[in-house]
């Protein structure tokens, strides 16, 4: 799965996700990637989220829109909100990660696997890519 989230100069947010799903999938199985609210969500009032991982758990936990709701309704920052939902995914038995950007332009990652191909950049000069959890 690949995904991106962005905040532009006009303050607008956008999120997108694309995937082949899981190896050997049967019965036209669909995971979270194409499901708005589970694998992808964007709301200028709150956040933009893209998720990757064991889709069934991201659907059950309604991860992407829950992160946005946490940020919008509690004022939580993107990393804390994302960590909350990833903890819930883990409790359910799932694994994976999310990328989040806030209306203020904070870009955050949260994942509970040993690695996530990831990167972020902003107008303050941040520009980094990483693979392993410990990076």
């Amino acid at each position: 799965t690949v995904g991106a989230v962005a905040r532009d100069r006009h303050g607008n947010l956008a999120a997108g996700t694309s995937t082949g799903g899981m190896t050997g999938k049967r019965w036209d199985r669909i995971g979270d990637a194409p499901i708005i609210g589970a694998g992808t969500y964007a709301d200028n009032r709150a956040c933009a989220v893209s998720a990757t991982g064991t889709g069934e758990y991201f659907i059950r936990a309604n991860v992407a829109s829950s992160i946005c709701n946490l940020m919008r309704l509690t004022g939580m920052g993107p990393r804390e909100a994302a960590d909350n939902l990833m903890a819930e995914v883990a409790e359910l038995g799932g694994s994976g990660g999310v990328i989040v950007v806030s209306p203020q332009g904070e870009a955050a990652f949260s994942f509970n696997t040993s690695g996530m191909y990831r990167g972020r950049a902003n107008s303050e000069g941040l520009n980094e890519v990483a693979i392993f959890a410990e990076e």
Partner: protein
Amino acid sequence: TDWAIALHGGAGTLSREAMTPEREAEYTASLQAALDAGAAILAEGGTAEDAIVAVITILEDDPLFNAGRGAVLTWDGGISHDASIMLGDSRAAGATAGTSTVRHPILLAQEVMRDGRHVFLSGAGAEEFADRTELERMEPEWFITQPRVEALERYRANSTASLADDEHRYG
């Protein structure tokens, strides 16, 4: 912060020991190229929508990642791509599932969003919707890579073995 972007290329069991330095360099270069493409659009005042579509179409073409070209295969060795997109200002959204010919599934999801009548199309219907667009279509061979064929063979061998175990388990 004036603009910001983040991307991912999937999460899972990744360890430095299991990845050669060359492989790590390949992934890092691909992630950097996609990130820089999105950041350039935003730095020039472009929209968040254009920036994420630029990033995702680059990664969809990159066989290192599980999307578009080089995506994983279904049990039958077929192609079945899913994608979605959403905009924060209008909460317009588009999603497609189970497509197998569209080079950039994220662009098909964007077409569904722009059409505006629906949010989520799947399978043959999504392909039929794609017929009415100018989106590029590719033959299966373009999407299928040898590492994914081998991964499917390993998965099927493991699955079959565990099924056999199940039989025993039920006595």
